[in-house]
């Protein structure tokens, strides 16, 4: 059994990680959530009570001194780097919420920490879409080769403005670009086996004009080897009343065909308490991801989306901000 500590409930995904860990503990018993830390004393108290977490630490460094095997880092984006480096230095395995960090300096610092670490640290970037059955089918289909070369890709990861610290650039590192570029950027890398070469970005503050960060943006990229065009729509352009939080869609134009995936399309129509929504039919991807991570740690193999994958995807978002600054296409 791998014991987990959870560093911060700042990101809303923390709740689902805690819940999933409890599920795993009760089903396969491969993992167990034993500790948590949070800056907010009140949040820490209520979440630990809710999820019945025994060891409660106000300071994450104390959590890292305890005997947990692994940590899940779900703090504000800009704080990931400190938490990651401390966890590496403490020899803990890591699942880190995306984006793993908000500057290229941070990426370099984490690389250094991994290099100097004496015991091997397994690092999983929280890219649960890699565990999605639709994505897996797309990967198999492309790898089979019958579609021929990929010629162009368009993608969306629409979402709803999350509010709170996501709107504070000092904590989030940016707006919709920072929040929603990385999932589809990772899927593009995963499906093509190629890297991002260059990016041009455009942004707007169209739905929440008073925000300090962008709420909608488009990225126009070229991949490194193939030079194929890739568009990414990372906008927080979904809202109250729309039947689903957002989407993850990719369309790949290939030599011999077209492959479209729309991961959250399977749904039931549901009306509850006067509100219409799409009730999703997809699997619990966080559960698959955490189980996959546990098995990688046990078998001492690289997790499905590693630190390098997280860093490569974050670099696309960072390049988009550079493109906006220079008002031109930039190299990733």
């Amino acid at each position, binding site marked *: 059994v791998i014991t987990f500590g959870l560093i911060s409930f700042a990101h809303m995904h923390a709740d689902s990680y805690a819940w999933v860990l409890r599920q795993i503990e009760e089903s396969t018993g491969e993992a167990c959530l034993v500790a948590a830390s949070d800056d907010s004393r009140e949040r820490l108290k209520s979440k630990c009570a809710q999820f019945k977490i025994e060891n409660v630490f106000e300071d994450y460094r104390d959590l890292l001194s305890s005997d947990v095997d692994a940590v899940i880092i779900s703090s504000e984006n800009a704080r990931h780097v400190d938490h990651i480096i401390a966890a590496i230095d403490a020899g803990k395995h890591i699942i880190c919420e995306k984006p793993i960090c908000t500057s290229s300096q941070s990426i370099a610092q984490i690389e250094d920490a991994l290099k100097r670490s004496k015991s091997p640290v397994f690092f999983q970037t929280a890219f649960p879409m890699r565990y999605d059955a639709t994505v897996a089918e797309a990967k198999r289909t492309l790898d089979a080769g019958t579609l021929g070369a990929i010629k*162009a890709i368009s993608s969306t990861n629409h979402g709803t403005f999350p509010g709170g610290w996501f709107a504070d650039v000092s904590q989030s590192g940016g707006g919709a670009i920072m929040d929603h570029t990385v999932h589809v950027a990772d899927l593009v890398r995963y499906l093509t086996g190629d890297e991002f070469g260059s990016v041009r970005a455009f942004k707007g503050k*169209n739905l929440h004009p008073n925000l300090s960060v962008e709420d909608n943006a*488009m990225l126009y990229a070229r991949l490194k080897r193939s030079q194929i*065009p890739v*568009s990414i729509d990372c906008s927080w352009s979904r*809202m109250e009343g729309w039947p689903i939080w957002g989407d993850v869609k990719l369309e790949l134009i290939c030599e011999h065909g*077209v492959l479209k995936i729309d991961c959250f399309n399977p749904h039931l129509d549901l009306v509850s308490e006067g509100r219409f929504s799409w009730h999703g039919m997809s699997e619990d991807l966080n559960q698959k991801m955490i189980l996959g991570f546990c098995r990688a740690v046990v078998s001492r193999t690289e997790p499905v989306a590693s630190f390098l994958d997280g860093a490569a995807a974050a670099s696309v978002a960072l390049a988009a901000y550079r493109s906006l600054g220079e008002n031109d296409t930039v190299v990733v």
Partner: protein
Amino acid sequence: MSSTKHDGGRSLPVRLGLIGLGFAGTVLHLPSLQRNPRAQIVAVSDVSESKLAEFSAAFPDLKVRKESEYKAILADSTIDAVVIASPTPSHAGIAIDALKSGKHVFCEKPISNTVGDAERMIVEADRHPDLILMIGQVLRFWPEYVQIKKQIEYGKIGEPVIARTYRANPMPLSEFYQRDELSGGVIVDLGLHDIDFLSWVMGPVKSVFAQGGNLSGRGDVIDYAQIHFNFESGAIAYLETNWALPENFPFSTAIEIVGTKGMIAADNNESRASFQLTVKGQKKIASSIAELNGYHYEQEAFLRAVQNKTPTPMKASAALYSLRLALAAKQSIKSNKLIEVSAKDTASARAN
């Protein structure tokens, strides 16, 4: 909108010549024109003998004069108006000749493939204030798109600020589509629909960026494009248009406009058809009714304007502006640069 004070069957039908018997002429326009009591097709023309022969075989009951020269149609003083559905590069010459012959002109989109030709058409139309020059930017008449425009005007979604459009169709086989000097490629021929619609709904465009190219290896055209619009208002749009598709890919269109208070979306493959006919042995399923589609409504607008001597709801200069935006997207693909739309062109668009 034009007045309908002479409606009610009191006006005589408009006597029409149809120039160009390709896909646009025979598939898009003829079926709904035939059913429209405001229209009477008197003559058709095509430079191709084989197109004329195909036409006679396909429409054996249609008693019309068949000409190989469009000028024979223009010489007929009993003809009121022409529908130009010939290849794009011929639009300007035919439209100008028709206006000079005193005919009203309905011209299939794109207005032209060059700005110079389009400008010459508009200059000629300005010389004939009594004649109508209407360009068939059909989305402005397509029921779903008309409703999107209306709901935005009613304030249902607030200010439209983020748009995405998608328009994909396998590149048709004829050589016309494969040659840039003829069709102008997928942006000018297909993407133009959404370009025109968005400029209508969201206002003047400040700058255009695009990437894409020839993905299919067929011809010398751009057959795939990802286009970005920065609007003067600060709104942005992503437009994707694609011919680089296998021949069995369904014709697909989608649009989503997000506003400050809501959003509105349509997708042609989420069928909302009221009528669907599947015939044994026929691959195509019929689900379109000639009286309910955009071609009918744009013809109706044209014919009504001719009968009532009222302006058409859309000025030809708006179609020129859309062409400029399409050409800016092509230019951006070639240069990999953001293309600023000139203030003069934007001012002319605002006047529309």
